[in-house]
């Protein structure tokens, strides 16, 4: 077990209940309106090195000691120690066991197929992924449609591997199975639930 010396850990939320509620609301908004870019109220948390403020805030909000997490963060990173301290979440070496995936460097070989897409009996058991991207902007780029989108939503994303979109599409085709994804960048957040259809 990696010991987390508390003196190296930054504080978490200032007001855990209120701050987590605000962030949770923005995650709800993001999932309800896929592709819409939201600013996470992350000003009240100092993100550790290796995590964007949005990922840090969402992590504090959604992870706890009962959520298994897989991450590509290095084992000795302050970010990992911070999550372990504040969320108390267990980490798995196997993405297939994880309820949440925290992907800090998606362009370094992210393999979506290794995450659990749920079962027909329990589609809600599918993994939710937080993916750090280089840019997240509205405007020309991807065209998103599906539940939660009135017509068409456009989104520009940089920093994902080339096969990300075709692999996601293949996985999410087995509806109701699939992966729910939150793209994060700085203090920005965009939701990509499994029902969203994405066209390049």
């Amino acid at each position, binding site marked *: 077990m990696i*010991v987390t010396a508390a003196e190296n850990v930054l504080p978490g939320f200032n007001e855990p209940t209120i701050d987590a509620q605000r962030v949770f609301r923005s995650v709800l908004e993001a999932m309800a309106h896929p592709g819409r870019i939201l600013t996470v109220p992350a000003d009240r948390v100092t993100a550790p090195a290796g995590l964007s403020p949005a990922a840090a805030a969402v992590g504090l909000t959604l992870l706890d*000691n*009962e959520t298994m997490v897989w991450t590509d963060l290095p084992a000795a990173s302050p970010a990992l120690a911070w999550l*372990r301290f504040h969320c*108390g979440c267990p980490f798995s070496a196997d993405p297939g066991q994880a309820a949440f995936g925290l992907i800090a460097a998606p362009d370094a070989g992210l393999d979506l197929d290794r995450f659990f897409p749920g079962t027909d009996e329990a589609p809600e058991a599918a993994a939710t992924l937080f993916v750090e991207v280089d840019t997240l902007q509205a405007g020309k780029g991807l065209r998103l449609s599906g539940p939660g989108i009135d017509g068409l939503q456009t989104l520009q994303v940089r920093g994902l591997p080339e096969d990300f979109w075709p692999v996601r599409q293949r996985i999410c085709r087995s509806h109701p199975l699939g992966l729910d994804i939150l793209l994060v960048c700085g203090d920005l957040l965009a939701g990509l639930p499994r029902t969203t259809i994405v066209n390049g």
Partner: protein
Amino acid sequence: MYVAVKGGEQAIDNAHRLLAETRRGDPGEPDIGVAQIEQQLGLGVDRVMTEGALYDRELAALAVKQAQGDLVEAIFLLRAFRTTLPRFGNTRPIDTDTMIIRRRISATFKDLPGGQVLGPTYDYTHRLIDFSLQAADGKPPRVAIADADAGAPGSMPRIAEILSTDGMIAAEPTHAQEAPVGDLTREPLHLPASRDVRLQNLVRGDEGFLLALAYSLQRGFGAAHHPFLGEIRLGEVTVVIEPAELDFEIAIGEITVTECVMLNRFNGSAETPPGFLQGYGLTFGHCERKAMAMAMMDRALRWRETGEIPSHPSQQDEFVLYHSDNVEASGFLQHLKLPHYVDFQSERVLLRRLQAEYAAKTTNQDDPNPEARSGD
């Protein structure tokens, strides 16, 4: 089908104010303090903690005050409160071997190693109303104190340990540490339920329900052989956790628990030799009757291990486990107070039709004596 009704806000509000006044009672009497309830109505508080599945004496005492002493209502309040708190983790399994014992008795061995201590008990009291308590003078009762060197009790081995040395009892099946532990607060009950889930259900289960079922077992509805009280222990056990930020486990304090082991013979099956099989009861605080009833029920539900044939309700996990929870039971029963106006209306329509059909049938049959039937 439930049909929403509107209105009544003012009346409900006023009813709750009236409840508050009723709860307070005569303002000429002093208001009862939560600490007083915790200290002086401690066994009620213990039951609320056990069945409310939350160890917090002060909170349980407050719930008892708020519920005017209605313990099932207080249990509901405690269960509702716990849903507002995050869970930080699990403790190491408590070690009742190292309990700081305040009471330990056995009905099976009079000279069991470690001896018997009666502790604070209602056993051997005459159940005569003690009017001296009514004229409370505030003086603390006098208690007997043994010599200082008699203070530390010796080792008190478990009854199962003693019996297992001469092969009279099957060892408790142990499982690998990693085996997931079922949790009814996270996953609904699935049948057949494994023993970990059954035990959790029984700890939370209603004392009255379990008592009645255990009684039915004793009276012949399930227990083929006489149950024996192996041991009851009351005392404090240490709660140990391992926080992620420390590289060692820490004891964060003691909680009071009651533990009971019941022994029931079984005569053996093709696979299992004859012997005693134990039932286990465990509660927060001092809940001796509950711990005994729980141990009886745990034993009764272990028929799959012995090859016994379950033939009574007390041995059926579905019957026992689905009906043991008094918060669920009370909610379902008391929902009948909610408006069922439309359901009832449809019931009346149906009955009117059935009566008409019945009347038509009896007229057609040309009943020779219609007067005599109408009195049914």
